[in-house]
């Protein structure tokens, strides 16, 4: 390879990353589902003819990282590349061959240059509805969760499969929006194809073979080098979470070997009867994301990086639930997996990973209307509505920094402004602020959760679809750091609500949601008293908590009593 070829490969790799970014932006701009638009719950990537991923856009969700990458190989098994023609496009929402639940559509399109197939583009997006019982974990089989579309053609030689679209429209509650999202997926693949062809013309390329080999080899070597800089060995860690009907243990054994990392989930709990089960592809995605954040956060994702992290789990466990398990809320498990792998990595490499955090999103899903809170007699008097807003508790403290408050990890979503939700529904938020004393005490304090207080302006009940974690088992600290506060869901009138499933808030009552805090890092008695005093001044912790948890005596306006603090810390 000449030295200018080397430069050219770099430039083209750079361009390929831009091509998939443009593909993803096209999708985000045209998508309908809130999670796609607001949270960037989409993926976009370009693949070689063997289905190996060459580049993937950096979007809001790690849940698609490996899952979409593997999906293309499933498509090629059903439709080998030599059967594909210009203008063909394929689709599926198979949770086990796509990205883990029926709400995610994956669309794959081949790209042709001068009549020869040169690449495949794939994209994934979360649609607003797929029929069934709706996006609730109360289903017990995949059949309850909606329409299942096996891998099949979406368009043949440029002609859309109208019969399929007809079937989709007949089976979902928001046919126009879902069809719009399917079109958006196909369109973003076209954008990717157009940009790729422009690049191939600019650099006079007939195929992506050499460039693809350069990308995959360079990335693989980079990953191997990064892994080989880590200590070799095997470490096991278990984290217990709330689950639906009973607590769940997530157990991982992480092995750092020669140029690869293997994470195995043997020992994890069996499957749930409800829709919080996780298909293997989604387990792989969040596990690989967690590991990659530590090993090589800056190397772009492609087949070369994915191969370096292997994820296995026995079938019929909560992390490898086969068909026909219910899987719609698979994120309940998936979001927790980076914390589990961090528990392993912490043993291998101290002072790198954060303490446990809230991790699973506290998505506030509210509704009122037919089949939820209304019967024939009151329909028409009260306003029906659905609210689906992503929120987060506190993240875990880092070895040298406090945890981030009300910030998601590992998910990368955004919330919806309170004023927007209030403008389109009768809901009123009376409070949305940091929850004092919720961050796990530690040398580095865990991030704070937030408290939300919600009512209906109309004299009508409303419902909550709860899928909340860390209510019974909090986020734990590391190295002596204390756990973050447990989450809590209750009525303003006092009654506690369950953390999973649909429940009613009576007319005139308020819903109070107190989100969990992140775990602390290091012993709280080692926290700099000035930092504790600053937290009191900011009212992030109370003076009482400063004394009890940190052994720091500080006035309510944040003035530190150094002498009393020394005495207090010596006596504890």
């Amino acid at each position, binding site marked *: 390879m000449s030295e200018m070829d080397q430069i050219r490969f770099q430039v083209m790799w750079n361009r390929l990353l831009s091509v998939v970014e443009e593909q993803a932006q096209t999708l985000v701009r045209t998508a309908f589902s809130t999670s796609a*638009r607001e949270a960037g719950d989409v993926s976009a990537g370009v693949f070689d003819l063997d289905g190996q991923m060459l580049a993937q856009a950096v979007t809001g969700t790690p849940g698609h990282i490996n899952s979409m990458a593997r999906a293309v190989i499933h498509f090629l098994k059903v439709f080998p590349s030599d059967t594909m023609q210009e203008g063909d496009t394929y689709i599926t929402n198979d949770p086990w061959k796509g990205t883990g639940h029926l709400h995610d559509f994956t669309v794959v399109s081949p790209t042709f240059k001068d009549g020869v197939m040169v690449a495949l583009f794939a994209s994934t997006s979360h649609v607003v509805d797929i029929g069934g019982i709706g996006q609730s974990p109360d289903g017990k089989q995949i059949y309850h969760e909606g329409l299942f579309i096996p891998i099949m053609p979406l368009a043949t030689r440029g002609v859309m499969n109208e019969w399929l679209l007809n079937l989709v429209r007949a089976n979902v509650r928001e046919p126009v*929006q879902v069809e719009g999202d399917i079109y958006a997926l196909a369109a973003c693949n076209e954008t990717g194809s157009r940009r790729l062809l422009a690049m191939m013309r600019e650099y006079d390329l007939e195929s992506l073979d050499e460039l693809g080999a350069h990308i995959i080899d360079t990335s693989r070597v980079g990953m191997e080098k990064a892994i080989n800089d880590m200590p070799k060995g095997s470490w096991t860690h278990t984290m217990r979470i709330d689950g639906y009907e009973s607590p769940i243990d997530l157990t991982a054994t992480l092995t750092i070997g020669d140029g690869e990392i293997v994470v195995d989930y043997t020992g994890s709990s069996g499957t749930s009867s409800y829709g919080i089960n996780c298909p293997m592809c989604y387990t792989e995605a969040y596990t690989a994301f967690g590991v*990659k954040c530590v090993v090589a956060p*800056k190397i772009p994702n492609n087949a070369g990086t994915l191969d370096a992290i292997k994820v296995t789990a026995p079938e019929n466990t909560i992390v490898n639930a086969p068909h026909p398990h219910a899987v719609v809320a698979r994120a309940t498990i998936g979001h927790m997996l980076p914390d589990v792998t961090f528990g392993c990595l912490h043993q291998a490499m101290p002072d790198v990973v954060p303490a446990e955090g809230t991790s699973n999103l506290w998505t506030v899903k509210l509704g009122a209307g037919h089949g939820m809170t209304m019967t024939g007699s009151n329909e028409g008097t009260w306003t029906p509505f659905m609210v689906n807003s992503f929120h987060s508790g506190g993240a875990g403290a880092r070895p040298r920094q406090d945890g*981030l408050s*009300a910030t*998601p990890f590992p998910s990368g979503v*955004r*919330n919806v*402004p309170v004023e927007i939700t209030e403008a389109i529904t009768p809901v009123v938020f009376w409070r949305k602020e940091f929850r004092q004393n919720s961050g796990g005490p530690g040398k580095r304090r865990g991030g704070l959760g937030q408290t939300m207080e919600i009512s209906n302006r109309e004299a009508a009940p409303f419902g909550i679809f709860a899928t909340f974690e860390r209510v019974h088992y909090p986020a734990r600290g590391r190295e002596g750091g204390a756990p973050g506060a447990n989450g809590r869901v209750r009525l303003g009138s006092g009654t506690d609500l369950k953390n999973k499933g649909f429940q009613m808030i009576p007319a005139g009552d308020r819903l109070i949601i107190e989100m969990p805090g992140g775990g602390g890092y290091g012993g709280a008695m080692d926290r700099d008293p000035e930092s504790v005093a600053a937290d009191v001044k900011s009212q992030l912790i109370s003076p009482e908590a400063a004394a009890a948890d940190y052994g720091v005596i500080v006035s309510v306006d944040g003035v530190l009593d150094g002498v009393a603090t020394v005495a207090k810390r010596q006596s504890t």
Partner: protein
Amino acid sequence: MAEGAKLAVDIGGTFTDVVVEWAGQQKSIKVLTTTQAPEEGVIEGVRAVLDTAGVTPESVQLAIHGTTLATNALIERKGAKTALITTDGFRDSIEIAYEHRFDQYDLYMERPPTLTPRHLRFGVPERVAADGSVLMGLDEAALKALIPVLAAENVEALAICFLHSYINADHECRAREILSVGLPDVPITLSSDVCPEIREYDRMSTTCANAYVQPLMAGYLQRLADALEVMGVKCPLLLMMSSGGVTTVETAMANPIRLVESGPAGGAILAQHIAAENGLAKVLSFDMGGTTAKITLIDDQQPQLSRSFEVARMHRFLKGSGLPIRIPVIDMVEIGAGGGSIASLDELNRIFVGPESAGSTPGPACYGQGGTAATVTDADVIIGRIDPMHFAGGKVTLDIDAAAKAVDASIGGALGVSIMAAAAGIDEIVNENMANAARVHAIENGKETHGRTLVAFGGAAPLHAARLAEKLGVERVIVPRGAGVGSAVGFLRAPIGYEVVRTRYMDMRNFDAARINSVFEEMRAEAEAVVRTGAPIGDLTETRTAFMRYRGQGHEITVDLPIRAYQAEDEGMFQNAFDESYKELFSRIIPNLTVEVLTWTLSLSTDPSLPKPVEAPSASAPGVPQGERTVFDAVSGQNVMTPVYSRTSLEPGATLAGPAIIVEDETSTLVTAGFDAAINSLGQIVLTKKGAAS
């Protein structure tokens, strides 16, 4: 004599540019920015440029000023000690923001610090609903109780932002009355004044930012206006805003946040005028300086406008790492790519360029001021695009050996390639970064870069424009004269204008023409009051937009509306206008979905009077090169002997073929092998792709 002289002043981070135009002539000067008392540098520059031009201060009839001072105060967090008064239960909305991590993989990410610390954020019991009705009255006693607390904290500025105040500002106005009695010397910003728009975090952020920079900016603007008057400049001072319009000092002192990014807006106005002079419908304005490059889409000679942008991005220009500001702005994408941008290798030996910059001190390695980092300018020297003997008109001799050493140490050695290949790589990557950002920006706006004309200005742009054009599918590039002070020249072309906004939610199923008419009447009155202070007479041009979306979507699109009173039958017109805009952006409409309006805007300005397209030069003749030198060609990977032309020797009508370099004092224009160049009748360099229909 110099009747009707016009003066423009642009304060940047390093230099203050001053331009005077009189009787068809133009003079400009660059002086160092005097950060501690910026008005001193301005006065020095004004005095110098007027002396050179032989223009008296008294004959200046128009003085327009743009400045990055507000932006810098936000970036450096050097504003006033600011307190926030908000609805009880929402004092953390300013910090919780969008509950978003802007860097997916960074476990150690930090959120940008807020402008108001938590102990200076106070909740007051009160509540307005989304429809403007009052759910809970304002607790005046609670508010009064804050006065001694705020006084004891020595708060210097107050921001008041209650929920839904964009529709009912009564509580905010009452709160100002109460607090201004107790704290008469503390300036107060109301969210319902500065940003009456839905989305509490963005509104709160804008309100706090305005309060935060107000004492500083008001003091500075008053001192500058006084100093100019003392000097003899009798005309009122006007201020450039980020929207591309100019306004009075009084308005600027009340809404200093609108001055943020006023410099780059001037550049876009210049590009707009060049588009008009050349009769171009689709333009990409490309401004590349020492630290950043800015790219703006200009369609039908109107710069793309927006109502939101992010200031003070902390982290590698990443989206979400700054403070959202909702004000009228010329929409531009800013990339950490300039002459001083530093090149390095990552863990995979991939070349990265920027966003860190060597700035002006120590500057690129070739400046010989002790800089050791390899920069874009170093690469340009090595591959022959910059003549080291004739940089800045020959006033500075560049050290090519230092450049070579830096590039070899940072890139070439580790990569195992020659210094020439490494330098070419730096150049290709920086061009690629800009091209990618431009393409993504276009796609986010439902547009293409393909088929546009690039207007290139700023010190580094003419060197990189041709290669950027090749990457963007652009077949024509225009390099104006005096590209180095482009922003200040743009100020002189800007109209006096003001834009106002109102959020009034309307579901199109409940279309209410009377309500819309009354909103526009109210906005027209507000805008006219502001514009008439700067332009007491003459016709005004009004534009109206609605921010509309399908019910259930998260983002609105901008829909232009006709200027007239609406009737009940106009419901269909609104629907059609939305459909057309939606189709333009997304290539399709979604039938049967309800459409809603969130926000309305009205902007009012004096006649922007764009120039008519100029005639082609009467005759053309080949230009004569002054010499030649070796330049490395990125496309062929070869060194090519390249003729060098002096810009001053090229008269209108002169033509030349690429590869070539056209040198002038402030910059050089690279004509790649794929382009030809000609000088048009305004002295602008026009590059045209070989074989393209001109």
